[in-house]
C-alpha cells in the first residue's frame, strides 16, 4: 500500500521533472541561477531545479505514510527516488540515443537542444548518463525522506503552513494601525493623506513609471466599472472591452485629423464618450439582460468580438480606419497649454479613479447597491421584494459601460493612437481577472488586482519566453491560495472562509497530514 503510494509520488514528480526538461525550465533555471551568482556554467541552476523536485518527491512520498517509523520512511523515500530516477533515466536514455541516431528530436520538441541535453548528460554516453541520472535522483528522493524526518522535530514547519490570512487583516492587525484607527479623524486623515500622496506621485515617477502606472490606473477605472457589473450585480460580462473600444474610437474619430477631420476639443469629447458608451450599454442590455447567468457571459463575449471585428472590417474602414486604426488622436489642453504628456495624464487618471471610486462606494452602500446584491443572490426573490430587475441590470450595465468609455477616451488620447488590436478578448479577460484577483466587490481590491495583473507581467519580463507560462500558473495558484482575492470586501471574506471550513474538506480530512 505504502509502496504503491510512494511509487506513485515518485512517478508523478518524475513526470513533473521531465516536463520541466521538455519545457526548457532547466535551461532557464541555469541561466537565472548563473546570473545571480555570476557563474559561467548553467549546470548548477539546472541541477538545482532537478534535485529540488526530486527531493520534493521524497517528501511527498513520506507524507503519505500514516505514522512513519524510520524504516518506513527510508523505504518510502527510496521507492519514490527509484521511480523518479527511473522515469528520468529512461527518458534521458531515449532522448540521447535518438539524438545520437541522428533523429531530429528538436523538430517536435524544440527545447531539446544539444546544449540542453548536455546540461543533463555532461557529454556522457546515453547509458552512462542515464545511470548517473538514476543514482542522483534516487539519492535525492532519499534525502527528501530523511529531511521530513529531521524537520519533524522542529515545529516551525507547522506555523508556516497555517491557514491563509489576507494582507488586509494582517495590516489591520498591526498595533500601530489599530491605534490609529481608533483616533477621532482617522478616516479623514487617511483620505487626505492618500490624496496628497497621489498628488505628488507623478512628480517623483519618471516617464516610464508614469506611463506604466498610468496604464495600471486605466485598468483600475475599468476594473471599478466591471466590479459594478460583475461584483455588485452579478452579471458576468466577458465583452467589457467593447465599451472601452467605443470610448477610444469616439475620442479618436472626433479629435483626429484623419479619417474625418472633426478635431473636436478633448474636454468636449470626454462626456460624449461617456454618454455614448453608456448608451451602448443600454442598447446591448435591453435585449440580452433578460438572459440569465452564463448566457449573458457568452453573449457579451460575442458583443466584444463583434465590435472588434467590425472596427477592423473592410465594411467600416472608412469610418474607423480599419486595421490600421486612427493616429494623431488629440490630447487635452488647458488654457492653451498642451497637457497631454504621461505626466499630466497621470493626474487625469488619478482624478478619474477618485471619482469612480467615490461613485462606486456610494452606490454600493445604498438602496441601489442592495438591490444589485439581492439580484445577484436570487433573481426571483429580488423581483418578489419589488425590484424591477431589468431596470437595475440596465443601470449596472450602463454605469459600468460609462466608466469603460471614460477609460477608453483616456487610453486612446494618451497613446495618440487607437486600433483594433488594442481591443481583443484578452482585455476583457484581464479586467475580469483583476476584479476577481483583487477580491470581487471590493474597491481597494480592484486597485490591488490591477497592480498585480498589469504589474506582474512586467515583473515577469525577466523570465522572457516563460513569462506567460508563469503568469498562467500564478493565476491558478493565486486562486487556490486566496480565492477571496487579495483585498476582499469583509463580506466576501466571511462567505468564503466559512464555506471552505464548513465543507470540512473531506479530502484533507482523510489524509494523514491533517488528521483530527
Amino acid at each position, binding site marked *: 500500500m505504502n509502496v504503491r503510494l510512494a511509487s506513485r509520488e515518485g512517478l508523478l514528480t518524475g513526470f513533473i521533472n521531465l516536463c520541466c526538461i521538455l519545457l526548457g525550465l532547466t535551461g532557464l533555471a541555469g541561466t537565472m541561477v548563473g546570473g545571480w551568482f555570476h557563474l559561467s556554467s548553467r549546470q548548477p541552476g539546472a541541477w538545482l531545479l532537478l534535485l529540488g523536485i526530486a527531493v520534493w518527491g521524497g517528501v511527498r512520498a513520506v507524507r503519505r505514510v500514516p505514522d512513519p517509523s524510520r524504516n518506513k520512511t527510508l523505504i518510502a523515500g527510496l521507492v519514490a527516488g527509484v521511480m523518479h530516477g527511473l522515469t528520468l533515466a529512461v527518458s534521458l536514455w531515449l532522448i540521447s540515443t535518438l539524438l545520437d541516431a541522428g533523429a531530429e528530436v528538436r523538430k517536435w520538441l524544440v527545447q531539446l537542444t544539444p546544449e540542453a541535453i548536455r546540461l543533463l548528460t555532461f557529454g556522457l554516453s546515453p547509458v552512462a548518463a542515464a545511470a548517473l541520472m538514476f543514482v542522483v535522483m534516487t539519492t535525492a528522493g532519499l534525502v527528501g525522506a530523511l529531511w521530513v524526518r529531521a524537520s519533524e522535530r522542529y515545529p516551525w514547519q507547522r506555523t508556516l503552513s497555517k491557514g491563509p490570512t489576507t494582507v488586509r487583516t494582517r495590516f489591520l492587525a498591526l498595533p500601530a494601525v489599530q491605534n490609529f484607527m481608533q483616533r477621532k479623524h482617522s478616516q479623514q486623515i487617511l483620505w487626505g493623506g492618500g490624496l496628497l500622496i497621489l498628488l505628488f506621485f507623478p512628480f517623483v515617477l519618471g516617464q516610464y513609471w508614469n506611463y506604466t502606472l498610468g496604464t495600471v490606473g486605466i485598468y483600475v477605472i475599468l476594473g471599478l466599472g466591471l466590479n459594478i457589473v460583475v461584483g455588485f450585480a452579478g452579471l458576468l460580462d466577458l465583452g467589457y472591452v467593447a465599451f472601452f473600444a467605443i470610448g477610444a474610437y469616439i475620442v479618436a474619430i472626433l479629435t483626429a485629423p484623419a479619417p474625418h477631420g472633426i478635431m473636436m476639443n478633448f474636454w468636449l469629447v470626454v462626456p460624449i464618450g461617456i454618454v455614448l458608451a453608456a448608451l451602448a450599454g443600454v442598447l446591448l442590455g435591453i435585449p440580452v439582460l433578460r438572459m440569465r447567468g452564463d448566457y449573458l457571459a457568452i453573449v457579451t463575449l460575442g458583443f466584444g468580438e463583434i465590435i472588434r471585428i467590425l472596427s477592423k472590417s473592410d465594411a467600416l474602414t472608412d469610418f474607423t480606419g480599419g486595421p490600421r486604426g486612427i493616429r494623431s488622436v488629440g490630447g487635452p489642453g488647458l488654457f492653451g497649454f498642451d497637457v497631454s504628456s504621461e505626466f499630466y495624464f497621470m493626474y487625469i487618471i488619478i482624478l478619474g479613479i477618485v471619482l469612480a471610486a467615490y461613485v462606486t462606494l456610494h452606490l454600493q452602500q445604498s438602496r441601489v447597491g442592495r438591490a444589485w446584491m439581492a439580484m445577484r443572490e436570487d433573481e426571483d426573490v429580488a423581483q418578489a421584494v419589488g425590484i424591477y430587475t431589468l431596470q437595475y441590470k440596465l443601470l449596472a450595465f450602463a454605469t459600468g459601460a460609462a466608466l469603460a468609455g471614460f477609460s477608453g477616451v483616456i487610453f486612446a488620447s494618451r497613446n495618440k493612437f487607437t486600433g483594433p488590436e488594442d481591443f481583443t478578448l484578452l482585455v476583457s479577460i484581464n479586467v475580469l481577472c483583476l476584479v476577481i484577483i483583487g477580491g470581487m466587490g471590493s474597491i481597494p481590491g480592484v486597485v490591488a488586482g490591477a497592480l498585480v495583473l498589469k504589474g506582474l507581467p512586467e515583473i515577469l519580463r525577466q523570465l522572457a519566453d516563460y513569462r506567460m507560462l508563469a503568469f498562467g500558473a500564478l493565476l491558478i495558484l493565486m486562486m487556490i491560495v486566496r480565492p477571496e482575492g487579495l483585498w476582499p470586501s469583509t463580506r466576501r471574506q466571511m462567505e468564503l472562509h466559512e464555506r471552505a471550513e464548513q465543507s*470540512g474538506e473531506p479530502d484533507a480530512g482523510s489524509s494523514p497530514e491533517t488528521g483530527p
Partner: protein
Amino acid sequence: MAMLEVENIHSYYGNIHALKGISLTVEEGEIVTLIGGNGAGKTTTLRSITGILKPRQGHVRLEGEELAPYKPHQIVYKGVAMVPEGRRIFARLSVSENLDMGAYSRNSKSEIKADLERVFELFPRLKERRNQVGGTLSGGEQQMLATGRALMAHPRLLLMDEPSMGLAPVLVESIFEKITEINKEGTTILLVEQNALMALSIANRGYVLQTGEIILHDTAEALRTNEVVRKAYLGIT
C-alpha cells in the same frame, strides 16, 4: 456494542462553535429522538454523524468503528441514510430517478424493486407522480420523496431531520406510524423533530439539546413528563 456512539464532538461553522461536546448513543433497534429549540444544534449533530461536516474533536463510531477517516459517501455504504432538513430533493430529476439515487449504494435489482414497491405503498402520491420532475412537486410531496429516498437505501441506521415538516395533519399522523413500522422491521432511527410531543410518543429515549450541549437525557416516557421539557419544548403549560 451500540449501533451509533457519538462521543464528545465539537463541530464548527467557521468560527462559530456549534456543537460543544455532544455525546449520545443509539442502540440497535431503538428510536432515539433529539429535541431542542431553534439553533440548538440538532441538524448540526446529524450532519456531523454523516460526515458532511467533520467534527474538529471527538469521535463518531458506528458499531465500534471510527467514522472520521471516511468520506460521507463511504459512510452511506456502511448503512447510514438521512432525510435531510429542508428536503434537498434533486429538483431536476424525476421522482423515480430521485428514488433510484436513494438506492445508489445498493446492487441487487430485486431488492431495490421490492423497496420501491414499499415506498410507493407508504406514499401512493409518489407512485402517481413517478415521472414528474422533483422540483415541481408540492412542498409536502417533496417531503414524502425525501423520506422515500432515504428508505431506498435500506439503511440500518436512519437519521431523520424533521420528516413531518410541511405535511398535512392527516399525513403527519401516518408518518409517525410508518416510522414505528420501519423501526419494527429492523431499522434503527435517530429522529429530530420540532414536534417533540409526537416524537417522544414513538421514541424509546430522547436527548434535549440547548445551544450545542445536551442538557437532558432520559427515556421518552420520563421526558414527556419532565416539567422543564413540557414548558420549553412541548408548549404545554
